[in-house]
């Protein structure tokens, strides 16, 4: 299967319809969340100090977006750009607050320049979601949850050798697919 194109290049009409549906009935917001979660998280994670902060900020962005969805006006600007602006403000607010509480100057603002890095992480999250089940589980357990080969083997009921092989295959697959995207 070919990797999906970055979300903002999806058809304007389909995006617009989704937003209008969610504005009319906020219970439809879930589709927008699923579609843009990875990019918002990748954007925030580059600026956060740790995983907890990245999760807090991501939650803040989507809570704000849901509460203020009515304010989004469709003018051809991608919805994700609006979300990232909320994220930028949330990060800046947090740094200012921390600086005030601790009496230290705000850290330098992270540059938006590294769009490629956010793109790559978004793409990677998408590609992991498309890995075969076993490989996906090993990747999430090994790298995101940082479990040992032995723990994963125990959990999956496989040998340590089999888990190492799945780890190798998963990384090889991801490397090949990332290369396909860039070519």
């Amino acid at each position, binding site marked *: 299967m070919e990797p999906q194109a970055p979300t903002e290049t999806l058809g304007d009409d389909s995006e617009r319809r989704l937003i209008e549906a969610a504005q009319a009935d906020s219970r439809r917001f879930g589709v927008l969340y699923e579609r843009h979660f990875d990019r918002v998280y990748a954007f925030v994670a580059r600026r956060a100090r740790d995983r907890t902060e990245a999760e807090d900020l*991501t939650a803040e962005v989507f809570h704000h977006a849901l509460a203020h969805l009515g304010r989004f006006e469709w003018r051809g600007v991608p919805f994700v750009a609006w979300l990232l602006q909320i994220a930028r403000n949330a990060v800046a607010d947090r740094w200012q607050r921390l600086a005030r509480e601790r009496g230290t100057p705000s850290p330098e603002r992270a540059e938006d320049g590294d769009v490629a890095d956010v793109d790559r992480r978004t793409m990677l999250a998408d590609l992991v979601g498309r890995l075969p089940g076993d490989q996906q589980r090993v990747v999430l357990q090994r790298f995101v949850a940082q479990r040992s080969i032995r723990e994963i083997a125990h959990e999956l009921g496989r040998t340590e050798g089999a888990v190492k092989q799945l780890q190798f295959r998963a990384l090889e697959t*991801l490397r090949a697919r990332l290369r396909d995207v860039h070519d």
Partner: protein
Amino acid sequence: MTEQARIDRLAEAVERFVADPRAPHPSHDRELAALLAIARDLRDLPRPEFKARLGADLERRAAMATIAAVTHRGIPSVIPYLAVQPAVELIDFVKRAFGAQELLRTTGSGGGVHAEVRIGDSRVMIGGGGSWSGTPTPTGLHLYVTDADAVYRTALEAGAESLHAPVDQPYGDREASVKDLAGNHWYIATHRSGSHVPVGLGTVTPYLHPHGATALIEFLKQAFGAEEMAVHRGPDDVIVHAKMRVGGSVIEMGEAHGEWMPMPTMFYLYVDDVDTWYRRALAAGGTSQEVPAQQPYGERRAAVRDAFGNQWYMAAPAT
């Protein structure tokens, strides 16, 4: 190199890398370095449990918002009603101290007045005076202004008594408090982050200090479909500060303590259906004070008193 050897070599390198992400990459082996670079990015991927939990949380909030939207239509606004003997003087005070604009004033044959004023974006009702002999209901009111220090000085010049001079509060507001000639407490504040009014609040918000804030919150939920915007509890589980959305308005509260004792308040609620909300308030534990009836001035009105002595008038234009 056999595939098995490559598998093992990667596993060892990942092991070292997981133990110490800053350990140098094996730069001589380009293939291994490329795989480890991907592994590094994988560490920053979101946890699937987090994504699922946030998704479920948003779903719940969206459903709540849908219910709330219906409720807001049911209760467009909740207005504090300050029933005091020196009503005329109080109207004059809020104009001078807070730049209130008088929207309406009617004077009865006995000299009693009913007035509505606007302070910033908020409405406040004031009544009493003349031969009026009801129980006064001065209350606590949180007032957000652009310059708390200046408004505090103006309030004192207008005749208020100082309760607390302006100080920077740990929660980020500059805050002072005064007591006006009718006994109302005004908590004059300037929010220090973003707008001078915190998100979600208006210029004036009633601030209650009940004995048993938890029970009052429950009453507001059951009677008027109120939602918790924020509830902060102290170490002993006592409610230090809560913000409740009631229809299109907000009521703040904190458990009574020290100098902040209960000041039972009168509220005027505009509702879509007086009889239904009246029954609901009774079912939530309220005591009837006025059964639904047409008023000579053209509204249908009812009133219920809660267990904390607050009075809730519910009114709608007569149909």
